[in-house]
C-alpha cells in the first residue's frame, strides 16, 4: 500500500513511522509534484492546523488535495488533520475560524480547537476504540468534536461523552494521536 503523508509541518515523521509499522510504503507530500505518485491513502498528521492550512494554500496543494478527498481517496487524519477536514470550526472569536479557503470542510463534524485548554491541559488516557479495549490515547492541545452533523458519521471512541474519533465514508479522523503511541 502506498501512503502519502502530508509533510508541510508537524509530526509527519511520527505518522510515517506509524504507517511503515503497518507495512505500508510511505512518501512525503511537500509540494504539487509529490501528488503525481500513486496513492492508496492520504495521512494528515498532527501539528498546527493554522500553519498547515496556510502552507497548503501557499504551496498550491489545497485544491488538488481537496479534489482527491472528495474523489474518495481514503484519508487518515489526526488532530490538526481532523481540524483541516472538519465542516465547521466551532471557535467563535478567532479571526481565522470562518475562512473556508483555509479548511477542506468536507467531514460533517464541528470541532473546537484547543478544547481542553493550553499545553497544561494535554493528557493521556485509555479507552475503547473501534471495538478494541484499553487503547492508549494521547491528547496534545487537542481539539474536541462538539457536534456530529450527519447520521452517516460513525463514532469510534469517546471521552467525557464526546466523540474523539470518527469514520465517515473514506475518512477516519482522530482528536488524539494513535501515531504517538504506536512507537512508544
Amino acid at each position, binding site marked *: 500500500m502506498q501512503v502519502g503523508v502530508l*509533510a*508541510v*509541518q*508537524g*509530526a*509527519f*515523521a*511520527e505518522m510515517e513511522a506509524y504507517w511503515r509499522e503497518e507495512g505500508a510504503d510511505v512518501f512525503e507530500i*511537500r*509540494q504539487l509534484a509529490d501528488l503525481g505518485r500513486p496513492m492508496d491513502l492520504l495521512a494528515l498528521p*498532527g*501539528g*498546527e*492546523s*493554522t*500553519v498547515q492550512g*496556510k*502552507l497548503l494554500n*501557499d*504551496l498550491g496543494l489545497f485544491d488538488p488535495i481537496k479534489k482527491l478527498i472528495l474523489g474518495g481517496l481514503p484519508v487518515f487524519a489526526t*488532530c*490538526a488533520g481532523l481540524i483541516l477536514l472538519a465542516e465547521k470550526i466551532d*471557535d467563535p472569536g*478567532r479571526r*481565522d475560524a470562518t475562512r473556508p479557503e483555509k479548511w477542506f470542510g468536507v467531514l460533517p463534524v464541528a470541532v473546537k*480547537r*484547543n478544547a481542553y*485548554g*493550553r*499545553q*497544561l491541559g*494535554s*493528557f*493521556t488516557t485509555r479507552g475503547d476504540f473501534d471495538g478494541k479495549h484499553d487503547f492508549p490515547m*494521547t491528547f*496534545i*492541545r487537542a481539539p474536541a468534536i462538539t457536534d456530529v452533523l450527519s447520521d452517516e458519521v460513525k463514532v469510534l471512541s469517546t471521552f467525557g461523552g464526546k466523540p474523539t474519533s470518527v469514520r465517515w465514508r473514506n475518512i477516519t479522523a482522530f482528536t488524539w*494521536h494513535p501515531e*504517538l503511541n504506536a512507537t*512508544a
Partner: protein
Amino acid sequence: MSDRQELNRNLAQMLKGGVIMDVGGVSRMSDPAMIKGIQNAVSIPVMAKCRIGHIAEARILEAIEIDYIDESEVLSPADDVRHIDKTKFNVPFVCGARDLGEALRRIGEGATMIRTKGEPGTGDVVQAVRHMRKMQSEIRKIVSLREDELYEAAKELAAPLDLVKYVHENGKLPVVNFAAGGVATPADAALMMELGAEGVFVGSGIFKSGDPAKRAAAIVQAVTNWQDSKLLAKLSENLGPAMVGINADEIETIMEERGK
C-alpha cells in the same frame, strides 16, 4: 520518565517542520499582560522567555498557562551557575545548547526541546551552524562507540549516562532539536534544516527587516521545502532589505557563553 514530560516532548513533536517566531524583548521576562494578549489573539502555541535559573519567572509563566518556556541566554541570567530544575514544572521548557553535553545536561534537568544558541540579534548564522554541526558530529561519534566506552564518554560530556546511552542507541537526541540565532533569510533556514535542525526559531532576522510578513512567510515555506533549490530561489526574490547584520565576533556581550 513522567507522563507530563512525555506529553511535553510530544508537543515539541507537533512543532516540528515549523518556524517559531520570537516577538519578546531582551533582558527580563515580558509583561504577563502582553503575553496574555497574544494568547487570546492566536490559536497557535505561545512560548515566552524566562531568565536562566529564574525559578519565580518560570512559575509566573506557568501560572498564566504559557505553552512553552524558553529558559533563555538572551535574557540576563538570574543565576550564573545553575539552570532551573525543569522536572518540577508541568509546563514544558526549551533550552539552548552549543554541543551535545550541554543539550543532554538541559534534558537531564527536564528540558523537552533543545535549540542551538546561535548569537541572537546579529543576523549572523555562524554560531547556529557551529553548534548544530558540533552537536550532530558528537552524536555520530557516540553512535560509533562500543557500549563499554559510553561511561567515559558521559564523563567527558559531563552528561547523564542514561541520556548518552539513548543517543548511542537512537542516533539522535531524545527530544526535538531546533536551530536558533541569526536566521535571517530563507537560505539560512534551509541551511539549518540541511544540517539536521527539525525546525527554526526566528526573531530579529524577520522583525528588523524591511517586510517582516513577506520574509516570515518565505522562511516558513523554506523550512518545509528546504531541499527544493528552485523554490528557494523564488522564495528569496524581492524580500526587501534584510536586517542589517553584525558580525558575531564584533559584539561585546557573547550571549552563548551564558549558562553552560
